[in-house]
């Protein structure tokens, strides 16, 4: 019996997502893990980060109180950097931008994702209601939706499933799943075949079999599956 291989650090997970942003893309980062992407982008690259509050063009999170501008914050009232060209707008305009298909990528956290690309990420167990926030619009309307999450819950429950059991945030919306052990693409169902999840990359030390063992949906292993590299 071999030791369980190490899982990726959250910063590296964010880098795996940010690696694939193209210059000039408009990207919305969800709270928590996804926001880490803001901190790993090279300062000389122009990726326009969008915030639902009504802001486009922010940069890394600021931790030094002396540098904070309290009017430049994102969800959770987190202070961030104002990049040159930053624009402020209203909530309705911010969501017109999302819903109108003007965002290239949404990176969201996830509680569950299934092989049809359904996403559940708003309803915490035991809570009397879910926090939808802007997730339904982002997940459904961004040109590309990436879910960045730990592969399993802290108590080991599976999160990538044949079919979500929690209330859906948005249906058939996920294009890619990046976790602490793998990178997977969701291939949408078509008339003649069901949706599938294709395993593209595995974390160092992980085999496709080891990833499959902690995944609740059957994975299709890509012919060119390889180790995650930045």
């Amino acid at each position, binding site marked *: 019996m071999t030791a369980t291989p190490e899982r990726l650090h959250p910063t590296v997970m964010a880098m795996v997502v940010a690696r694939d942003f193209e210059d000039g893309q408009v990207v919305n980062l969800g709270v928590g893990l996804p926001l880490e992407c803001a901190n790993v982008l090279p300062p000389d690259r122009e990726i326009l980060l969008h915030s639902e509050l*009504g802001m486009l063009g922010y940069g890394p999170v600021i931790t030094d109180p002396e540098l904070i501008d*309290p009017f430049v914050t994102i969800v959770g009232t987190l202070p961030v950097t104002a990049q040159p060209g930053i624009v402020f707008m209203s*909530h309705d305009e911010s969501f017109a931008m999302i819903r109108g298909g003007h965002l290239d990528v949404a990176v969201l956290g996830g509680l569950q994702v299934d092989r049809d690309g359904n996403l559940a990420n708003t309803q915490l167990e*035991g809570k009397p209601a879910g926090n939808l926030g802007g997730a*339904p619009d982002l997940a459904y309307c961004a040109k590309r939706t990436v879910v960045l999450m730990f592969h399993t819950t802290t108590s080991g429950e599976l999160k990538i499933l044949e079919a979500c059991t929690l209330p859906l945030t948005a249906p058939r919306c996920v294009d890619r799943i990046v976790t602490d052990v793998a990178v997977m693409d969701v291939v949408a169902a078509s008339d003649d075949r069901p949706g599938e999840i294709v395993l593209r990359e595995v974390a160092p030390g992980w085999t496709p079999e080891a990833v499959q063992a902690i995944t609740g949906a059957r994975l299709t292993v890509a012919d060119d599956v390889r180790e995650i590299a930045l």
Partner: protein
Amino acid sequence: MALVHPRGPRLIDKRIATFDEAVADVPDGATVHFGGFVSPWNHPSYLVAAVARQGASGLTAVATAMGRGPARSDEHSMWYPPERRPTDYFDIGLLAELGRIRKGITSFPVAARHSLVYPFEAQLARGEVEVEVTGQGSLAERIRAARAGIAAFYTPVGPGTAVAEGKELRDFDGVPHVLETALHADFALIRAQRADRHGNLWFRGARTFNETMAGAATVTVAEVDEIVELGTLGPEEIHVAGVYVQRIVERPRTAATSWEQPQ
């Protein structure tokens, strides 16, 4: 040749001296839009506190989030050392805690962590209040529709999820859409940084629901950091035209330390 008005002209002046006066006529059972996005710098704290003092109850509150309440209000500025955190942040969790809210229409009804329970959430779990959870995009568009005289609209966001249940679905270009209706309020309580006596508003930073809600209610009241002379705000830089705003009130120079202080 020009008409001379017999009474002499009466200038437009939407300034109200106190927050208490500005919300004195909010009735029990009113629907109220609350602007901002859970930040001391964009929430209409003094208007919330004035509503709390005024006592209106049975409110339907439309807001991004239902608030943390006074006990946790400084969590919103945790990145500042304690001595720099605003003492005058009163979020609508205060109204929830006082039992004034009957129903919330919101995107964030609960705390984001298992370990936290906010006032509205606790009441919801006990079945004391109602909630209508709406994604933020549809909530923003429903409020904008109220301002813009649009009765209802079809959005692609919602079909296939709980928010579309019981609503009309229709395909456009093969994509399912759900019909959402305008969300008008009796009062909109919002926050801006600058205003003039016409009610023209200017905002610093993301304008959140503060811009969206202006004009989406019968009476829009703006809490502002500063009232400037008419003409100071340039015609190209005004974010909200004064016609959408009925009352403006300036925040005090010295921050309140309790919501109970009359302002």
